[in-house]
């Protein structure tokens, strides 16, 4: 009886453990395989607009047709790799500025009065309660030529002609940094808040001035938070479509926009899929590398 219960208990536990795997299988792996499959087929004017990979010829022969042309096309046409590089550049610069702004904010909140912390964190998350799209639209109102910012600058006499801010790279950076800043602050705050402050006292005791204690103790200990925050900002920023379309120069090359055009304007699903697969590889390979490096640093032991 006991053994039976134990077995049942074990099964119950494995069911719980299976839930995230099942989720990943259903909503990540299967869609990925479908996209991968489409990326190897050729475009067709039909519904769906691509040729099937597997073809039953009716003579006991199963034909598999792999079209590598889509990937070759991405390499040959420099539009694509320019878009990739530009997206990675824009995402990197935005991540950098998010970190520059987010670290002091997270640090200040983590070191503030415990009763104030929850309110301050609430204020950080508060923008999520309005639609993302609305908030990006609001920036149009701020940045346009007769928008809030230009009018304000003219009013205080800093400029006499409005500066072109909307539809520039500057507007895209502002939009991305604004939208993704909370994703930088949240993991950083979680990391800094749980730090043992006696470590800083120990550093002071051993001769560190406060800023040295920050550089030698706080900063290295917060690196996992920095890493998590950077990934959370960088990954969605690379594929960002909405912000460059609304705020940026229409000619700005971003891989998210290219993907959109391939899918909806050109209806070239195979090329669009290939773009998506390559983008995924661009993101997953460095991430795996980081994870490896982090594990090696921890001596292979998870705490």
């Amino acid at each position, binding site marked *: 009886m006991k053994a039976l219960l134990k077995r049942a208990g074990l099964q119950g536990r494995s069911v719980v453990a299976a839930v995230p795997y099942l989720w990943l299988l259903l909503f990540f792996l299967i869609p990925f395989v479908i996209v991968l499959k489409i990326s190897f087929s050729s475009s067709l004017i039909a519904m769906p607009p691509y040729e099937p990979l597997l073809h039953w010829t009716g003579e006991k022969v199963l034909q598999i047709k792999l079209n590598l042309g889509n990937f070759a096309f991405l390499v040959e046409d420099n539009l694509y790799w320019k878009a990739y590089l530009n997206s990675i550049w824009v995402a990197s610069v935005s991540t950098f500025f998010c970190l520059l702004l987010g670290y002091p904010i997270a640090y200040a909140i983590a070191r503030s009065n415990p009763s104030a912390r929850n309110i301050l964190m609430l204020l950080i998350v508060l923008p999520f309660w309005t639609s993302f799209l609305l908030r990006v639209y609001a920036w149009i109102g701020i940045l346009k030529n007769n928008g809030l910012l230009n009018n304000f600058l003219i009013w205080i006499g800093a400029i006499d002609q409005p500066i072109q801010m909307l539809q520039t790279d500057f507007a895209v950076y502002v939009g991305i940094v604004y939208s993704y800043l909370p994703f930088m602050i949240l993991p950083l705050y979680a990391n800094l808040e749980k730090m*043992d402050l*006696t*470590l800083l*006292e*120990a*550093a*002071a*005791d*051993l*001769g*560190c*001035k406060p800023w*040295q204690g920050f550089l*030698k*103790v706080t900063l*290295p*200990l917060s690196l996992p938070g920095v890493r998590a925050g950077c990934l959370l900002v960088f990954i969605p920023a690379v594929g960002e479509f909405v912000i460059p379309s609304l705020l940026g120069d229409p000619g700005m090359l971003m891989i998210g926009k290219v993907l959109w055009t391939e899918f909806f304007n050109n209806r070239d699903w195979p090329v669009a899929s290939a773009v998506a697969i390559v983008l995924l590889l661009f993101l997953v390979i460095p991430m795996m590398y980081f994870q490896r490096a982090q594990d090696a640093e921890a*001596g292979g*032991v998870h*705490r």
Partner: protein
Amino acid sequence: MATSPRATQQKFEPWTDPDAKPYVRIEKVTKKFGDFFAVDDVSLSIYKKEIFCLLGASGCGKTTLLRMLAGFERPTSGKIFIDGVDMTSIPPYERPVNMMFQSYAIFPHMTVEQNVAFGLKQERLQKDEIESRVNDMLNLVKLGQFAKRKPHQLSGGQRQRVALARSLVKKPKLLLLDEPLAALDKKLREHTQFELINIKETLGVTFVVVTHDQEEAMTLSTRIGLMNHGEIVQVGTPSEIYEYPSSRFVSEFIGSVNMFEGRLVEDEPSYVRIGCDDLEAPIYVDHGVSSAPGATIWAAIRPEKITISREKPDATDNWTAAVVQDIAYMGDMSIYLLRLDSGKVVRVTQPNIYRHADDRITWDERVFLQWYPESPVVVTK
């Protein structure tokens, strides 16, 4: 009040020498948190090469006092001198003091070696000097082969030794230890206690130790400062504190004690007699006591200073009858709980000198308790 006799075998007693200069001088230091007095008007002198224990229950202010010595807290009023220099407004990173934290506060992102070298690198010493001093220190605390390990790969005892090495490697003039042995098991604790005394001897450091564990304070310290509610209640050597407590609080805090409440019935310069409602005979003490006539006083008698016998003593003083209520056999000794006729329970310990004793005093037996005239300590508060 009794004056304490000087222990004869110990030579190290700078506090008895009026010419000796205290190494650490705490002058009327008070620390308030809001309306709460964490440390209340404390003055102390600590001498070179002492191991001075601040002993007290949690919340008595001992850690706050230690943190003021380290520089993490500023006194609300009063001054702290170390080696004659006013330290009151000097930040921790400029004090000739190192502290070993209760949580050890070892940097988790550094190896054992890097942890120990941290303070030396801060001093910008030569690389090979740092290396040799770190090695020496790691050997001293027997962590040589763990130099490259990260803190999470160490046991509690090893971490404690890393913390100790890290605070000692800078050769501080004053080492502050906050509950240094609290997280260790009994065996390791005893071992470390002797190690600390050895380190004191070899390096000539002055120690201030905070502890709530009286046993630790007794074995480690040259002197104990007993604290209660932010105040120093008594300062003295372990034996002074144990044998000559100045108040009920001290005698009850250190070891166990039987406290008999009573009044002076005879008050002579050379002896007193105390009438106590719980006891059948009065308590006779062989020295004078300064107390207001008629005031309530207490006689404190340690459990090991009372003897149990079956025969009724023919003395007029210092005995009472009792019934054995409980016996706890501890191996080296037995603890007897005896109920007096008044209902008060007295604790007596007896060494188990004989292996076989067939006629041992046993449960529910009616017996007589006796003690010597010099055994009770009379306290007035």
